[in-house]
């Protein structure tokens, strides 16, 4: 891509320009940007409690990892030339965003390489050429960096970029088939926000089979020697390595966490205040999700039942999607990220920033996606409407909670349409490949090559 580096540099410069105004824009207190789990203000409070020899989980302010307290905590109290104390943290987030963009680019390159290799094996040279012209990785990383939601998340004093980094690192590690890296990132991501635990399936598939490829029946149809070309051989060695490293990193992180807590609190208490807080949806302050409103309204004796229903909803989707998209583990990971972004207890625009960036990785496959313009307009409308409705409810007093919840519902609907459309387009793409091969195998191989 010709303009790649200038675009990357300008995106970073744009962030650096906005960082000093972050406090004026008051993004850190926006419910769309900072959630109780990712708010830097809460982290600063947790750090202050820890410094006062109290458990950071005392009270109900902090619900994040103790490791983040150790890394980011000291930076939240440092002031540089009278600037906001969150300035250094914001600079770190700018760097994290850059890292995420580079990782997305690398993932994109690996996907394109794998696709081209597969198309050459299937003797679809035309498709291979078209995949080479659209550098999905470059476009995805530029889209990620220039996405206004990413910029707001980066500038808005919340720890979402770090969570996102770990998720992207997991996918990158798995795509590159580096088991220790994938294991580390997966353990960290799960430690930070629990939901990436379901990435275990795509990571296993990625490590076992390698990056996305067309369905295996196409290779059989083309009589490609599967064992000979190493297209679809499941590598148990990497899986065992991954399991081993997961065990090591998990122990390591637990030890680090307990050291970080300095005996002020115990690990079960940490789990209760982090994972427990996520699963029981204790904080009902408004956010762009739908759970806060639902649990504010629901009768207490139904609460546990609906908590189970909502969380199992995510798990219900895991297996069918995994079966249907086994051959596309990267895309599967993207769909999982979208699903949890929609159904998680405390969603923020940071989640949308991540999956919208990853969506572009599949630009070639999703070229035929329907309703793209409608979804695009919907995202713009909802992201502008949400702060206005919040203002109408909280500040002007002329609206009420239903106004804000309505935008949350619209946002959830949009995400549902995006998931449904992207998955169906991907399946249609596979069907189209199958048809293409069917017609080409019926004609002579020479004719196919010529086309």
């Amino acid at each position: 891509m010709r303009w790649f580096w200038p675009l990357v540099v300008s995106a970073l410069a744009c962030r650096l320009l906005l960082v000093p105004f972050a406090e004026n824009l008051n993004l850190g207190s926006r419910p769309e940007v900072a959630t109780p789990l990712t708010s830097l203000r809460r982290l600063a409070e947790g750090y202050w409690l820890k410094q006062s020899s109290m458990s950071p989980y005392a009270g109900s302010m902090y619900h994040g990892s103790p490791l983040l307290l150790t890394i980011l905590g000291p930076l939240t109290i440092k002031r540089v030339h009278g600037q906001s104390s969150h300035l250094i943290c914001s600079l770190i987030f700018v760097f994290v965003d850059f890292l995420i963009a580079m990782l997305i680019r690398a993932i994109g390159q690996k996907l394109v390489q794998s696709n081209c290799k597969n198309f050459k094996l299937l003797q679809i040279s035309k498709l291979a050429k078209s995949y080479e012209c659209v550098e999905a990785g470059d476009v995805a990383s530029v889209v990620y960096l220039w996405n206004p939601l990413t910029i707001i998340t980066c500038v808005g004093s919340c720890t979402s970029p770090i969570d996102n980094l770990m998720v992207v690192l997991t996918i990158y590690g798995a795509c590159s088939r580096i088991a220790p890296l994938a294991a580390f990132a997966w353990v960290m991501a799960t430690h930070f926000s629990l939901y990436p635990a379901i990435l275990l399936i795509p990571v296993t598939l990625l490590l076992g089979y390698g990056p996305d490829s067309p369905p295996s029946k196409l290779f059989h149809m083309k009589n490609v020697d599967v064992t000979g070309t190493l297209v679809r051989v499941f590598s148990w060695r990497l899986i065992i390595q991954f399991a081993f490293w997961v065990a090591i990193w998990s122990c390591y992180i637990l030890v680090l966490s307990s050291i970080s807590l300095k005996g002020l609190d115990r690990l079960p208490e940490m789990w209760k205040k982090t994972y427990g807080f996520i699963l029981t949806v204790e904080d009902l302050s408004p956010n762009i999700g739908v759970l806060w409103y639902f649990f504010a309204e629901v009768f207490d004796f139904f609460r546990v039942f609906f908590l189970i229903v909502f969380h199992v909803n995510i798990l219900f989707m895991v297996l069918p999607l995994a079966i249907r998209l086994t051959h596309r583990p990267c895309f599967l990971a993207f769909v999982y990220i979208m699903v949890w972004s929609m159904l998680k207890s405390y969603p923020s625009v940071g989640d949308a920033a991540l999956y919208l960036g990853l969506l572009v990785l599949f630009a070639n496959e999703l070229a035929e996606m329907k309703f793209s313009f409608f979804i695009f307009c919907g995202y713009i409308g909802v992201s502008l409407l949400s702060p206005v409705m919040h203002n109408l409810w909280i500040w002007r007093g002329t609206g009420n909670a239903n106004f804000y919840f309505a935008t949350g519902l619209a946002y959830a609907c949009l995400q549902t349409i995006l998931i449904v459309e992207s998955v169906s387009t991907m399946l249609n793409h596979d069907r189209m490949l199958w048809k293409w091969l069917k017609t080409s195998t019926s004609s002579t191989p020479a004719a196919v090559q010529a086309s």
Partner: protein
Amino acid sequence: MASEKETKQGLAKKSRLIVRVGSFLVSHSALVSVICCIAGCVLLLLLPVLAKSTYVSENALMPGSATPMFSNQDALEANRLVKDIMRILEDGREMEIAQLIGKRMEDVGAEVYYHRFRSDNLHFNPLGFFSSACNMVLKNSSGCTSIGISSVGIIRAPRGLAYSVFSLLSRVVWLAKDIVWLAADSRHDPRSTGIDTCFVNKFHGEDRKFDGRTYDVFRRAGTMAAALVVKVIDKSERKERDRLDIYAEASNGQMPNLDLINIVHYLAVHRQGLDVKVGTFKYLQNSALLKHLSEMLSPLTKLAQSLNPGWKVGINSADFVEGTATLASSMYYQALGVPTRPHGAFRDFQIDAITMELSPRGRLTIENGASSFLLRGGRLIEGVIRSVNNLLEKFHQSFFLYFLTAPNKFVSVGIYMIPFALLVVPLPIVAAALFSTTESGSSATASSGVVAESHTWNWLSSANLVFNVHLWAVLVSLLPYLISQMPLMNSAISMLSWISFSLSTIFIFYLLMGSPNSYAKVYNWKVLKCVTIAAASIGLCLMSIINFSTAQVGAMLLVPLCLMVRPLKKPIQLSLFRRTSLQFAKLVLAVLAFPPATFAISKGLLQGFRSVGFGDFWEWSEFLWTWNSATYLYVTLVHLPCWVLCMHILLHP
């Protein structure tokens, strides 16, 4: 082939009703848009007919149910204070007024202190539109007396009226709420909103220090239930009755709860016999066109009412003219987004507030007239305070979103949304129609190859242009910040530099991104129109939530332009007359919808074209941004870019 056709027909039959209705609307988009736009405009004209009489929603208010305690004695006391103040003014010792009022307050047993403030020159602040707190800093410029003791509601009057009510209220021990009387010094700030803003900001906790130390100990009462700004105007003209003008419009079209206006209106009319007025446009009242229209409509509405008396739409022609003039004024001041009087400062903190401008029927210098006027005014204020005192919570029963067509008539949000919705509905329908035509065209060409060109994403290049134009609009909206920093600029030069900077930046954009001609090769004008319409509809819908009136006025200009626009060079299959008239209408709309032209034309029509100056638009914009009105953002970030995009389509080769 036959079987394929049958299956297709079967599928079409099977499709759901909503899908069929949708596809019918999309396929007849031109007709639907014409019908909707005309219906929207007609319904807007009929709003005065559909207005309902106001009623007090909150039962607890019980206005006028208690016998007033404000007596002639209190009126005499007020008169004495007025004379004392006049004497001080005649001696040229203006600074002593604050001390005098403070002294009187102390005498009735109130807590008194002086609140220092700075009447800051309002300036362009780009972040001011998005941050809720006002950036007023306190400074010692003049004395401003404020008092807090078992008190609520700020009663502010220069003519002793408030003092006498205040002194009365200090004697009534059963009052459940505190009264705050702020006697504001409005010499340095004629609109005096700054002073009130200063006070209300500080009241709500913005305790800023000045010169490193705080001046007075700021005393607070509880949450403010309501605020009344009282102003007495001594007009020279003689009238039959004392007059009360109610001003309710606050920043960004926010209105106080209708119950507050209702109780003031009820007490003023039915208890004190005042002549109550709300803002109205005089030139519309005298408009011959409107009178003709009203004469035509009046029999029709009466006929409609005779068919069903429950409809209550019967209106006589004078009421219609009056209602339309009041509605237009109500809509204009809400659309402007600038508070009409100092009560605006309170509304920003969710306090329902209005300004009451009292004017006596004769000269205040006449002893008897002044006493009876003060008695009536005092009893009115007392009645309102006693009603508000009955409330256990804030006003919430009645409407917040409404237009007034008379002091006792209103149009609620449920009705006034309909014309706007009718105007905006054609936008998505036309966008869908355009998108479907371009999509079917491109899919037909793409079906030849298996690897279809991504026709579902063909809007991306147009979206890129739309984004760039909006980016340019952001620059244009920020330019006044730089221009206003330059010294010795009058409005005409500022306007000239604004235009020249804007033009130069758009040319720079063209240099960087490619000229419109080069773009024309990339995008299809239909897709560009579709994306422009999407941008316009998002902007209008968003604005309708922030400030409905701005969106309504904007929609009347922007919607027809967006719907009608198509390249001038593309031939239409119509008769010569219709083709020429359509092209002419497009050009007229294009001129009318350009914000400075709209402003100049409307000013010219209302005040005569001789009064229109080159720098007027700059002054108007300055007025908007100094009050952080969202209308400025609408004009520069929604209306202007959509107009530029429409020009792109119009000039498409």
